[in-house]
């Protein structure tokens, strides 16, 4: 198909380079330099999408990031489908495949458009009102149907194969926007020696100037030379980073700005080694926002038909892309500036009629229009449009002296409608900086006022609209930013330019006959919100604009109301009889335009998603076929299946081996902290519940750490290595937070103590050798240590050597058997492990994993902090009162334990549970009740914390926290499960060897 609407010359497209693309499978052709939107318009395609709620036909409205209608999916392959892209920003490339969205079966014939006929029955708040009852129907009926009938594009079906990059950067001055103000600000700051980053969302520098037939001419004195020199100078300056195709999407505290740089979306064949996008986090000493302004639509009936566009957008398509968006145009406006679009269209050969709602139009541009023979209807409103898939005509009506639509009506045939209600400064980023906005009655706009951040605005985003004035404003802002960034400024700084009115009339809707609210006069195109919806919300009692927004959904779509917010506000304010600043503005939130998840994820995906911690013995375990589990960032061997064993069978075998012979366990992940110094014992006394003064060198003790609220925080074995040195172990997951807690007390509360804390978790490999034959295995390998029960009893500690390697040896047991924990420097961990394993082979040594460790310790009733405790468990609740040092005046948590609630007899206490059916293993987390088969709701009196099948005992066992549990020994309680209530008997939590004779062997 020919691009019949392309002008003969001019524009920034390359007429020698045609580019083929498809839209909904239809083959079309554009030019290098086109956007998808400009190429579609060049082919006469205005219908590009269906609306969100009513499925109304929609066309291209704008030429920029504010586009609410022309949302498309761009598909490269099944995995590379990007939905909801604005066709006005999609750069055309050879072979581009675009699809319209939210239509079925096709764009021209959409069955969902039935919603449009039902529109009178789908007012604001419809969902809230209609689908209230029955409530449960939401899940299976209403929500799926609504989601199917409305909504935007679909997500791709495969994982994203592209890569994304992140970068941090610092600069003196960050300039956002490369229009006249931004270019001038960057140039001006760079000239004063500042390190500058200049970013702009477009592929070329120039901003709004790119929409001018002669960009430099509008810049005032020597404009053309200045523009060329400035751009050349910025690109050549090594202290200036120029980022095009880069959107500043978010303004975060302390001048941190998020930039989204699109690297390959515009390329026909991206290099797969190149990232698709790069997200920048820029910390700027000073920020200059030169973000421009967005043209406001007018609100009148049928203002959403394809072919109804913003006046400035039509002008951009003409001047920048050489595309005539229509041949018979009508301009509807309330201010002078829009007349430029009419004049440019006329000069390009279109017929243009001007409809101006104001009483008169006597400005210079209006006079030029009349002189060039354009028909100008002043004091005239628009009361309707016609045309199913493209506008065909509009109906206008004269306004009387009071501005009422009472005069004669007339139909004007057309194929293009331009509208303009003035300009809204883009204060999004400024507002995100927590900057306050001030209402300007003269400009009919919110302008930036004070911000806590080091930011200033320049150009149209603060109401300085003309290009020449914006350039001056930018020069001043850039110089001031450089000065405030700490650079010596010896050049005279110009004053900021005053804000100017663009001759803007009031925002809002055009007058309608009888003053009645018009039908289908759209305010928010993307969320299908009409002026009627807003008036209804006001009538129904919504007063806050934030509530109106949520009730009507105005401004809540992916465009965040860039074209709609001020019109919505003006309509609501008038209905409430308040001024616009009294009604207030909704909050601007990041992102300015949608940002891909990929760019936020950056490098942190797959193997780099999280660090992986492995022990020195990890590879050995992997070679033995261990199955691993994640414990925090650690990989821990869970069990070692042999010959295709199930976990159940492997764990049973490993447990049996430890109880009857010996087992080998990698405990290297245990947290370890070396507490050293002349006050080390005082420090330990103040922190842990236990008494440490009488712990002799060469002895271990089971330590419990509370928070000052009295609840168990961590536990672990502590060995006294010397008078002034403790080897403290923590839970695997608790190492970092215990060290942080120790540091906190040491640095801020007990500054009188001379103590050093060192994390040694990664320095020691810990090998647990457990079982009745452990001593025999170890004896052959150890030097300088007497392993006999007399010399090294249970909870004894010794230093010596194993296989010639220095070792700290603790005789401790988390299994209930005779056991040792061998600490060796991590580099030697594997060698010592292998030596022990070899020495143990005649004794049937068996490596075991965390699952077996859990079963063995549960058989002994040893708690695991975080599994059998949950931050509300005291030492007494857990049956650990024996560990508390009775003579100590204070320790962390002691005072809290004295509060009455902490020794209420009704507290939950740790007990054992035995199921009536011995082979039934309870579910961990299951609730426990007093009576069977009561009708809900029943009050649970506890829950199961640990539950396993014990091969040693030939039955299941469980630990539980039960209200007043220790007073219920022998009592039968129930665990309600689907289908049956399981009877359980309360017992002691120690199921095996309650006297501890095995571990003292």
């Amino acid at each position, binding site marked *: 198909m020919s691009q019949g609407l392309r002008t003969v010359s001019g524009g920034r497209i390359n007429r020698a380079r045609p580019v083929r693309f498809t839209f909904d499978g239809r083959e079309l052709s554009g030019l290098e330099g086109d956007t998808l939107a400009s190429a579609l318009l060049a082919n006469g395609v205005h219908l590009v999408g269906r609306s969100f709620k009513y499925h109304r036909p929609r066309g291209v409205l704008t030429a920029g990031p504010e586009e609410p209608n022309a949302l498309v999916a761009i598909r490269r392959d099944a995995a590379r489908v990007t939905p909801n892209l604005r066709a006005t920003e999609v750069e055309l490339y050879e072979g581009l495949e675009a699809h319209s969205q939210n239509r079925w079966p096709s764009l021209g014939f959409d069955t969902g458009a039935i919603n449009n006929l039902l529109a009178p029955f789908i007012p604001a708040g419809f969902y809230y009102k209609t689908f209230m009852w029955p409530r449960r129907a939401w899940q299976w009926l209403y929500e799926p149907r609504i989601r199917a009938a409305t909504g935007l594009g679909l997500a791709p079906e495969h994982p994203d194969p592209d890569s994304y990059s992140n970068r941090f950067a610092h600069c003196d001055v960050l300039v956002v926007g490369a229009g006249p103000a931004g270019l001038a600000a960057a140039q001006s700051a760079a000239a004063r020696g500042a390190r500058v980053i200049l970013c702009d969302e477009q592929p070329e520098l120039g901003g709004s100037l790119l929409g001018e037939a002669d960009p430099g001419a509008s810049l005032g004195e020597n404009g053309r030379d200045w523009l060329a020199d400035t751009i050349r100078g910025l690109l050549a300056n090594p202290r200036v980073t120029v980022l095009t195709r880069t959107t500043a999407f978010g303004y*975060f*505290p*302390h*001048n*941190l700005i998020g930039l989204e740089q699109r690297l390959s979306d515009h390329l026909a064949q991206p290099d797969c080694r190149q990232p698709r996008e790069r997200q920048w*986090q820029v*910390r700027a000493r000073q920020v200059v926002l030169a973000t421009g302004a967005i043209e406001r639509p007018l609100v009148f009936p049928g203002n959403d038909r394809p072919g109804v566009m913003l006046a400035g957008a039509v002008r951009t398509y003409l001047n920048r892309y050489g595309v005539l968006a229509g041949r018979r145009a009508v301009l509807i406006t309330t201010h002078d500036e829009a007349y430029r679009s009419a004049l440019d269209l006329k000069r390009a050969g279109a017929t243009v009629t001007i409809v101006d709602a104001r009483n008169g139009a006597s400005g210079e541009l209006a006079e030029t229009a009349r002189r060039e023979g354009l028909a100008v209807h002043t004091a005239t409103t628009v009361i309707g449009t016609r045309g199913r898939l493209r506008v065909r005509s509009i109906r206008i009506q004269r306004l009387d002296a009071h501005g009422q639509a009472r005069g004669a009506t007339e139909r004007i045939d057309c194929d293009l409608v331009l509208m303009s209600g003035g300009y809204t400064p883009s204060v999004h980023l400024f507002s995100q900086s*927590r900057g306050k906005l001030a209402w300007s009655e003269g400009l009919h706009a919110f302008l930036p006022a004070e911000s*806590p951040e080091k930011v200033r605005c320049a150009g149209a985003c603060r109401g300085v609209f003309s290009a020449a004035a914006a350039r001056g404003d930018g020069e001043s802002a850039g110089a001031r930013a450089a000065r405030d960034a700490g650079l010596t400024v010896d050049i005279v700084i110009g004053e900021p330019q005053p804000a100017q009115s663009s001759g803007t009339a009031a925002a809002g809707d055009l007058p309608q006959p009888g003053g009645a609210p018009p039908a289908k006069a759209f305010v928010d195109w993307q969320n299908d919100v009409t002026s009627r919806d807003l008036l209804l919300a006001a009538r129904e009692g919504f007063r806050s604009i934030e509530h109106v927004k949520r009730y009507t959904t105005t401004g809540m779509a992916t465009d965040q109301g860039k074209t709609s917010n001020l019109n919505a506000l003006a309509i609501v304010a008038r209905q409430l009889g308040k001024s616009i600043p009294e009604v207030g503005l909704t909050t601007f939130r990041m992102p300015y335009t949608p940002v891909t998840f990929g760019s936020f994820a950056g490098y942190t995906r797959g193997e780099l998603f999280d660090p992986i911690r492995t022990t020195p013995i990890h590879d050995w375990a992997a070679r033995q076929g261990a199955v691993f589990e994640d414990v925090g960032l650690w990989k821990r061997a869970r069990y070692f299946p042999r010959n295709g064993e199930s976990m159940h069978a492997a764990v049973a075998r490993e447990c049996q081996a430890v109880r009857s012979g010996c087992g080998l366990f990698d405990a290297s992940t245990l947290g370890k902290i070396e507490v050293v110094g002349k006050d080390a014992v005082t420090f330990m006394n103040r922190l842990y519940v236990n008494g440490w003064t009488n712990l002799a060198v060469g002895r271990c003790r089971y330590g419990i750490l509370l928070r*000052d*609220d009295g609840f168990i925080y961590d536990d672990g074995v502590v060995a006294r290595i010397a008078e002034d040195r403790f080897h403290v172990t923590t839970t695997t997951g608790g190492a970092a937070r215990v060290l*942080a807690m120790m*540091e*906190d007390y040491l*640095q*801020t*509360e007990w*500054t009188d103590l001379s103590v050093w804390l060192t994390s040694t978790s990664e320095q020691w490999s810990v090998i647990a050798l457990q079982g009745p034959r452990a001593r025999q295995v170890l004896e052959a390998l150890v030097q300088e240590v007497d392993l006999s029960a007399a010399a090294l009893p249970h909870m004894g500690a010794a230093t010596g050597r194993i296989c010639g390697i220095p070792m700290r040896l603790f005789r401790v047991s988390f299994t209930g058997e005779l056991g040792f924990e061998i600490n060796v420097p991590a580099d030697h961990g594997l060698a010592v492990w292998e030596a022990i394993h070899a020495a143990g082979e005649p004794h049937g040594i068996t490596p075991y994993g965390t699952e077996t460790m859990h079963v063995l310790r549960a058989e002994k009733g040893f708690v695991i902090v975080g599994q059998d405790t949950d931050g509300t468990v005291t030492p007494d609740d857990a049956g650990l009162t024996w560990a508390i040092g009775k003579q100590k*005046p*204070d320790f962390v948590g*002691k*005072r*809290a334990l004295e*509060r*009455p609630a902490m020794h209420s007899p009704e507290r939950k206490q740790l007990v054992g549970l035995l199921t009536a059916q011995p082979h039934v293993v309870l579910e961990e987390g299951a609730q426990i009740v007093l009576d069977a088969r009561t009708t809900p709701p029943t009050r649970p009196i506890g829950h199961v914390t640990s539950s396993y099948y014990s091969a040693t005992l030939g039955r299941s066992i469980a630990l539980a926290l039960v209200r007043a549990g220790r007073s219920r020994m022998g009592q039968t309680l129930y665990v309600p499960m689907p289908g049956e209530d399981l009877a359980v008997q309360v017992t002691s939590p120690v199921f095996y060897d309650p006297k501890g004779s095995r571990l003292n062997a």
Partner: protein
Amino acid sequence: MLLINCPYCGERPELEFVHGGQAHIARPGDPAECSDQQWAEYLYRRDNIKGLHGERWRHTHGCGRFFNALRDTTSDVFLATYKVGEQPPTQAQLKGVKA
């Protein structure tokens, strides 16, 4: 992400730090002397200030030191950071610092 001036290391991004709650709440010297009410106040009661707030930070992924800061909770501007044991700056000392 805030930019925080560690008194030992200088300005660093927030992700190197951990927030430590309200500053200048000393643990009672003799907890046994506290009533239950006083102990509960020490444990649980904290200010929730709109405006200038004294708070603790720890430069966890840096020097590891705790320090105190005065931050305006409405603007996130830090008026000062200072070492443990030092007194917060007085109003007079803060004059001229933009909140």
